[in-house]
């Protein structure tokens, strides 16, 4: 983890409520795809955790959805303004588990962190299948970007207005070596129940600190209580426990 000041280079909407934020600053502490950052915002006490969509030397790309005060404040910020950000938070996905034909499953805004994962896996020459699930056509984002990485991309929409009708679980390919999933808990649970084989899942949680100090985001697992912010947000399928 590292605390740093980042300068906004770009903050543009991709859909009605999803924005892409490009930040200039020291991104060297982002060590794995699936990690997140924690952003301090004026007049808000708690930082806001946002998953990392892409990272390069000196450049950080985040995709966020306006769901409350914090993200709404973020959405009105302009290039040139600076942000106090904690980077390199969370364990991230374990790319060593991917096998030859990894499958990436994203639900809504949960698709964002899969982009950096897909880029890593493609660099390793893997055949990467991506299924992105959205509610409706107008909410779809980054389909082209995943294509451009050379992924085999399927988009599903719950209302059938675009791509395959239904949920990501309705777009599962025939065979794959390992899956990585990120999205809302009901989607993760559906994947857990429907998707064959082993995988890793990235969870969301309401966090206090974001770096393991406050026990605010603890989740029970088969391996005991785990902090989503520090022991996660990515967990192996085999350790996940669902609340009844």
């Amino acid at each position, binding site marked *: 983890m590292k605390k740093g000041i980042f300068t906004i280079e770009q903050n543009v909407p991709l859909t009605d409520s999803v924005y892409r934020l490009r930040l200039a600053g020291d991104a060297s502490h982002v060590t794995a795809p699936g990690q997140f950052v924690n952003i301090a915002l004026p007049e808000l006490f*708690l930082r806001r955790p946002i998953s990392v969509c892409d990272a390069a030397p000196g450049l950080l790309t985040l995709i966020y959805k306006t769901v409350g005060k914090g993200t709404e404040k973020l959405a009105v910020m302009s290039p040139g303004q600076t942000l106090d950000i904690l980077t390199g938070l969370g364990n991230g996905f374990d790319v060593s588990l991917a096998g030859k034909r990894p499958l990436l499953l994203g639900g809504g805004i949960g698709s964002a962190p899969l982009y950096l994962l897909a880029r890593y896996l493609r660099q390793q020459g893997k055949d990467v299948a991506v299924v992105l699930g959205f509610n409706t056509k107008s909410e779809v984002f980054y389909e082209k970007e995943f294509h451009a990485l050379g992924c085999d991309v399927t988009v599903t929409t719950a209302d059938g207005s675009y791509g395959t009708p239904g949920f990501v679980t309705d777009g599962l390919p025939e065979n794959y070596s390992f899956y990585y999933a990120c999205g809302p808990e009901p989607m993760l649970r559906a994947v857990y129940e429907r998707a064959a084989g082993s995988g890793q899942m990235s969870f969301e949680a309401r966090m206090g600190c974001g770096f393991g100090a406050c026990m605010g985001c*603890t989740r029970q697992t088969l391996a005991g209580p785990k902090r989503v912010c520090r022991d996660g947000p990515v967990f192996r399928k085999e350790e996940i426990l669902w609340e009844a």
Partner: protein
Amino acid sequence: MGSMSVTLCGVPLDNPVIPASGTFGYGYEFAQLYDINCLGTFSFKGTTREPRFGNPAPRIAECQGGMLNAVGLQNPGVEAVAARELPRLRECFHKPVMANVSGFSLEDYAYTCAKLDREPQVGWLEVNISCPNVHGGGMSFGTDPKAAASVVRAVKAVTKKPVIMKLTPNVTDIAAVARACEDAGADGLSLINTVQAMRIDLKTRRPLLANGTGGLSGPAVFPVAVRMVYQVYEAVSIPVVGLGGVSSAEDVIEMMLAGATAVQVGAANLRDPYACRDIIAALPAAMERYGIENLQDIIGGAHHG
């Protein structure tokens, strides 16, 4: 340059800044960020006799000038703390640590304190009788002077280490609880724990926290903490550790003027993991600005003259 050192219950501190229990884990996460030996000491995560998972999620909510938490004393239990956390702490922290203890019965408190009494690195036992987020215990001991005194006696019977009772602000007369603890033999007091509070989600129309209520901390409670430290300082002669929304070197000085011998920093660590390091670094300049030679000399300064 003057001195920042103070003495808390006979144990010297290089400076009065102490990360508060529940915001600093067992020190490990922060030791990876900076050398935590710059701290006066720190109060580790509230420890109980048995391991506890704590409350269901969500455990955290936000509000203006602070946050609510209802963690519910998640901790690995005193055996694991002694066997796993303290050995790991010895590697990165070379000062006496403040051991924060919670319980649900007098036996719990005595058992856990007796275990921690054997740990050489434990310099003080901070006994939490003020957790607003657990039922049948915690705060129920802290809201009644007699019950508070009974915990003090149970703990003093099993330890030679200084015992600091952590008090709740959710009372009509905190001075009465403070006096009862002093009369029962407490060596010091720390206050305030969090203020019981609630937020409601307008979308779900339910409390934001799964526990319903939670504890408010952060700058929002600072003036309440200053008032209570001031009142308790007048009521007792044992040292007072002040906490509640402290976020700057100026806040530390204000707390000490109110009567605090040492000052804990809680919620500020969660927004900024470097908060305590930065507050300590800022203290000398703040002392000079306000004409303070030695911090020890200003304790309770607002009561004189």
